[in-house]
C-alpha cells in the first residue's frame, strides 16, 4: 500500500550532540524539516533555560530590524526580496550581525533625532515668519487708526486728550495657535479679561508640518493687545493653556523688517541642512533595504535553533546535549546524513549520535502529502487527525468527494465553468503562488484548486448523466421516445393541449437512451415525478455503497492492530446488519427497474414494502403493496430476524469474551501481558502508565453499548441522510431552470434584430446570476453537504481520528508563518 493509506511509521529517537556541534546539527535538521523535537524540560520556565540569553539577544535584533523595516516603509523604499535562503549563520557571526544592527539602529536614531530638532527649529522660524508678515498688517491698521485719532484729538481739544492719554502704552503679545482652538481661545480671553483685551487673528494659508508626528496642521497667527501688566500675565497664561506658541515681536516697523530678513536667511540655511540630513537617512535606508529580508531570515533561524536547544537536556559532564525527537523511520538515513554534515561543519571530532528508543506513547501522525493530495488530507484532518497508523480516508476521499459533490451539482455547463477556473489556477500555479496575498477567500480557493478541478470534472460527467447543460438537454443519440404519426396525427394533435406518451402503446422504442437521461424528459411537464423517483433511488444506492465501503475499511484497522475479536464481534455483525436491511433495499430497487415495465399489471411500491417489512404486515390491497415474489414473507422475516440478532451479537459477545480472557489470565497467576495491546479500542494514549491498565468491565460494556446503538441507529439515519444528494440536485436543477426561463428566455422568444439586442442585454444578468447563485452559493452549499457526508456518514464507520499531527522543526515553515504574520 502506498504512503497515504496509513500514516508514516514514526519512531522516538534520542540525540546526543556535542555541545560545540549542537548548534550546527540543529541548524541542519531545521533545513531538513523532518524531525519533531520533544521538550525535555517542560517544568523549567522560560527564563531559567540554558540559552535564554541568546534568545533574548535575537529578540533584541528582531526589534531593531522591525524598527528599520518601519523606517524603510515610511520612506517608501522597496525592499529587495531575492527569495534566496541563507543558511543559519554560525554563532560567532551573531556578534557581527548584532554590531551591524546596533550601528544601523544608532545611526537611524541619531539621524531621526537631528531631523526632528531641525524640523522643530524650522517650524518655529516659519511661524515667526508668518507672525511678522501678518502682524505687519495689524500694526498698519493700528497706526492708521491712531493717525485718525490724532485728528479727532485736534477736533475735541484738551479734555479728550486726557481721556485717551491712559491708553498710550498698549502692550501686545503675538503667537501662533491651532486653527480649531481659535473660537474657544477667543471666548476664554473675553471672559477672563472682561472684554478688556483686543484680539486680532489671521489664518496661515499653508499647512505646517508637526515635527513629532509628521502630520500637516492648519494654524493661525494672533495678536492680543492689552493694557497693563495684570492683563498681560493673564493673557499669557491663557495662551499657555491653549498651547499657543508666543514669539517676541519688536514694536517698531524697522526692527520688525530687520528681524524678518534675519529669519528668512536662517530658514534658508536650515533648508539646506535638512535636505542633507534627509539624503543621509535615505542612503542609509536604501543600503539596509537591500539586506533586510536576508537579515530577518538569519535572525529567525538563529532564534529557532536556540529555542530548540532550550528543549535539550545537559548531561552530567556538561559536554553533551541530549534531545528526544520523533522522526519518520523512512528518513532516518537522511537525518543521520544531516547530523554528519552538521558535525563536520562545526569541526567537532566526536560524531553526533541518533538512537532509536522504544516507547509506549502514541507517536504523531505523519502523512506525506504532495500538492495534489494535500487539500484532500486537510479536509480529513479538519474533522480529526487520524490515530497513529489507522486507515486514512483521504486517498478514497480524492474520488468519492468530488463524486458526491457532482451528484448535487450535476450540470455540464456549470461543471465546465468550475473546471476551467480550477484549471486556470492549476496552470498558473507558480505565478499565483509567487504573489502571495492576505486575501483569505482567495487563499482557500487556491489551496483547494485540485479539489475544485476534480469537482468540476465530475460535475461535467454527472451533468452528462442528468443530461443537463444550463437546464437544457442534448439529443446526441436520438431520444427513445417516439411520436408515431399513427397516434398523433395532424387532426387529433391540436385537439388536446398535452399528451402523456404511453410506453405501453408503442411510444417507447424499447431501447433506452444509451448514456444519461432521455432528452424528452427535459421537455416534459411531469419531469419532476420521474426525476424524483430516479434521483432518490440513486442517492440511496450511492449512499449504501459508500457506507458499505466504510465498514469494509474497518477490517484493515482491526487486522493491522491485531484485534481479531473486533472482526468477529463488530465487523461481521455490522456487515450482516447492513446487508439484511439496506443492501436488500438496493436489490429490490434494481429488481423493480429490470422486472417491471408499463405492460406488467402492477409494479410494487418499494417504500411501502420496506416499511411493511419492519411491521411484519403483509396486505393484499392495493396491488402495489401486495407480495410480489413467492416466499417474500418468509425471506423478509428471516432477513429482519437476522438483522435483529446482530444487535445482541455486537453488544454482548465482545465484553464477555474479554472478561473471560481477563479472568483466565488472573487464574494463570497474572502473567503480565498488557491487556490494552489486544483489547482496547482506544489506541494507547496516556504514556508510560497505560500498560498497567486495569480491566474495567463496566467501562468496556458501556463503550460497546454506545458503539452498537450508534451503528444501528446510524445506519438508518445515515441512509436517509444520503437523500440530500437528491434534494440538492433537484434544487440545483430547478434553480437553473428558473433562471433560464425567467431571464434568458426573454431574449430567445423575440424575433429579428430586437431579439439580438435583448439577448445581448439579458445575457449579463443571466451570467452574473449563474456565477453568483448557481456556481458560488449552490456550489458552496453542495460542498458543505459533501463534507458532512464524508465526515459523518462515511468516516464514522471506521475512522477514530484521535491522533495528533507530526509538526517537524523546519525553518521553511517557521519563516512562512512569520511572513504571513
Amino acid at each position: 500500500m502506498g504512503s497515504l493509506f496509513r500514516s508514516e511509521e514514526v519512531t522516538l529517537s534520542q540525540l546526543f550532540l556535542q555541545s560545540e556541534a549542537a548548534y550546527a546539527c540543529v541548524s541542519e535538521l531545521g533545513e531538513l524539516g523532518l524531525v519533531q523535537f520533544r521538550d525535555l524540560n517542560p517544568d523549567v520556565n522560560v527564563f531559567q533555560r540554558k540559552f535564554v540569553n541568546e534568545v533574548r539577544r535575537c529578540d533584541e535584533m528582531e526589534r531593531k530590524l522591525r524598527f528599520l523595516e518601519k523606517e524603510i516603509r515610511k520612506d517608501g523604499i522597496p525592499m529587495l526580496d531575492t527569495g534566496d535562503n541563507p543558511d543559519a549563520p554560525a554563532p560567532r557571526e551573531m556578534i557581527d550581525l548584532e554590531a551591524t544592527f546596533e550601528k544601523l539602529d544608532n545611526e537611524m536614531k541619531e539621524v531621526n533625532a537631528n531631523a526632528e530638532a531641525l524640523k522643530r527649529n524650522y517650524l518655529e522660524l516659519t511661524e515667526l515668519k508668518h507672525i511678522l508678515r501678518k502682524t505687519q498688517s495689524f500694526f498698519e491698521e493700528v497706526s492708521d487708526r491712531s493717525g485718525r485719532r490724532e485728528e479727532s484729538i485736534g477736533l475735541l481739544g484738551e479734555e479728550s486728550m486726557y481721556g485717551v492719554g491712559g491708553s498710550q502704552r498698549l502692550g501686545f503679545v503675538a503667537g501662533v495657535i491651532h486653527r480649531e482652538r481659535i473660537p474657544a481661545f477667543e471666548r476664554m480671553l473675553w471672559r477672563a479679561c472682561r472684554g478688556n483685551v483686543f484680539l486680532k487673528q489671521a489664518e496661515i494659508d499653508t499647512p505646517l508640518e508637526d515635527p513629532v508626528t509628521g502630520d500637516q496642521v492648519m494654524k493661525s497667527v494672533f495678536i492680543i493687545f492689552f493694557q497693563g501688566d495684570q492683563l498681560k500675565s493673564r493673557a499669557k497664561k491663557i495662551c499657555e493653556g491653549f498651547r499657543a506658541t508666543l514669539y517676541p515681536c519688536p514694536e517698531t516697523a524697522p526692527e520688525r523688517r530687520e528681524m524678518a530678513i534675519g529669519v528668512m536667511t536662517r530658514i534658508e540655511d536650515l533648508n539646506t541642512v535638512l535636505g542633507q540630513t534627509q539624503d543621509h537617512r535615505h542612503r542609509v535606508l536604501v543600503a539596509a533595504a537591500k539586506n533586510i529580508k536576508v537579515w530577518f531570515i538569519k535572525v529567525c533561524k538563529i532564534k529557532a535553533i536556540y529555542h530548540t536547544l532550550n528543549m535539550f537536556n545537559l548531561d552530567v559532564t556538561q559536554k553533551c546535549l541530549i534531545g528526544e525527537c520523533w522522526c519518520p523511520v523512512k528518513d532516518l538515513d537522511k537525518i543521520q546524513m544531516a547530523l554528519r554534515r552538521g558535525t563536520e561543519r562545526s569541526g567537532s571530532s566526536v560524531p553526533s549520535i541518533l538512537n532509536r528508543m522504544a516507547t509506549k506513547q502514541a507517536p504523531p501522525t505523519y502523512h506525506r502529502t504532495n500538492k495534489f493530495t494535500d487539500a484532500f488530507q486537510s479536509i480529513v484532518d479538519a474533522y480529526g487527525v487520524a490515530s497513529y497508523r489507522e486507515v486514512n480516508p483521504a486517498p478514497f476521499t480524492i474520488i468519492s468527494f468530488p463524486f458526491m459533490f457532482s451528484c448535487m451539482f450535476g450540470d455540464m455547463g456549470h461543471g465546465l465553468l468550475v473546471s476551467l477556473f480550477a484549471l486556470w489556477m492549476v496552470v498558473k500555479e507558480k505565478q499565483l503562488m509567487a504573489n502571495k496575498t492576505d486575501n483569505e477567500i482567495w487563499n482557500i480557493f487556491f489551496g483547494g484548486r485540485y479539489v475544485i478541478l476534480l469537482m468540476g470534472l465530475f460535475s461535467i460527467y454527472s451533468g452528462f448523466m442528468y443530461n443537463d447543460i444550463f437546464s437544457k438537454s442534448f439529443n446526441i443519440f436520438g431520444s427513445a421516445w417516439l411520436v408515431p404519426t399513427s397516434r398523433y396525427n395532424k387532426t387529433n394533435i391540436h385537439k388536446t393541449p398535452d399528451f402523456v406518451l404511453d410506453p405501453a402503446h408503442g411510444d417507447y422504442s424499447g431501447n433506452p437512451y444509451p448514456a444519461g437521461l432521455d432528452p424528452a424528459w427535459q421537455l416534459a411537464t411531469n419531469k419532476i415525478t420521474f426525476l424524483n423517483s430516479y434521483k432518490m433511488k440513486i442517492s440511496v444506492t450511492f449512499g449504501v455503497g459508500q457506507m458499505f465501503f466504510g465498514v469494509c475499511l474497518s477490517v484493515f484497522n482491526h487486522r493491522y492492530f491485531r484485534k481479531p475479536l473486533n472482526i468477529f464481534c463488530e465487523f461481521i455483525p455490522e456487515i450482516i446488519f447492513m446487508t439484511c436491511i439496506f443492501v436488500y433495499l438496493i436489490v429490490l430497487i434494481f429488481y423493480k427497474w429490470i422486472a417491471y415495465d408499463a405492460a406488467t399489471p402492477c409494479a410494487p411500491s418499494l417504500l411501502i414494502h420496506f416499511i411493511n417489512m419492519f411491521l411484519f404486515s403483509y396486505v393484499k390491497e392495493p396491488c402495489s403493496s401486495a407480495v410480489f415474489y413467492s416466499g417474500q414473507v418468509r425471506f423478509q422475516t428471516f432477513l429482519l430476524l437476522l438483522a435483529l440478532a446482530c444487535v445482541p451479537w455486537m453488544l454482548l459477545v465482545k465484553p464477555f469474551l474479554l472478561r473471560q480472557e481477563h479472568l483466565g489470565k488472573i487464574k494463570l497467576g497474572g502473567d503480565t501481558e498488557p491487556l490494552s495491546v489486544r483489547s482496547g479500542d482506544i489506541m494507547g494514549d496516556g504514556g508510560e502508565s497505560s500498560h498497567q491498565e486495569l480491566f474495567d468491565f463496566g467501562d468496556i460494556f458501556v463503550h460497546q453499548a454506545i458503539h452498537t446503538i450508534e451503528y444501528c441507529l446510524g445506519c438508518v439515519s445515515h441512509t436517509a441522510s444520503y437523500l440530500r444528494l437528491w434534494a440538492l440536485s433537484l434544487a440545483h436543477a430547478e434553480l437553473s431552470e428558473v433562471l433560464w426561463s425567467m431571464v434568458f428566455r426573454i431574449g430567445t422568444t423575440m424575433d429579428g434584430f430586437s431579439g439580438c439586442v435583448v439577448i445581448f442585454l439579458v445575457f449579463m444578468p443571466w451570467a452574473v446570476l449563474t456565477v453568483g447563485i448557481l456556481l458560488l452559493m449552490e456550489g458552496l452549499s453542495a460542498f458543505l453537504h459533501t463534507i458532512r457526508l464524508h465526515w459523518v456518514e462515511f468516516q464514522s464507520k471506521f475512522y477514530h481520528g484521535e491522533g495528533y499531527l507530526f509538526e517537524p522543526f523546519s525553518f521553511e515553515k517557521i519563516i512562512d508563518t512569520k511572513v504571513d504574520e
Partner: protein
Amino acid sequence: MGIEIPIIVVTSFWLIVGGVIPWFIPKGPNKGIIQTMLVMTAVSCYLFWICTFLAQLNPLIGPEIDNTTLTIMQNQW
C-alpha cells in the same frame, strides 16, 4: 441502438479504466494513489451510468408533453 451495444461499450470502457489501466501504472511513490483513483472513478461512474440506464430501461410512465412541443419533436427528432 439495441440494449446490448451500450451495455457492452460502457461496461468495457469502465472495465478498462478501472480494471486494466491500474496494472500499467509506472512505479513511484504515488502509484497506489493513482490506482485507487482510477478504480474508484470507474466504480462510481459505472454505477451512476448503470443506474441511469436501468431506470429508463422499462419505463412505467411516459413524459407528458404539450402538443406544440410534440409537433416539433415529430418533425425534428
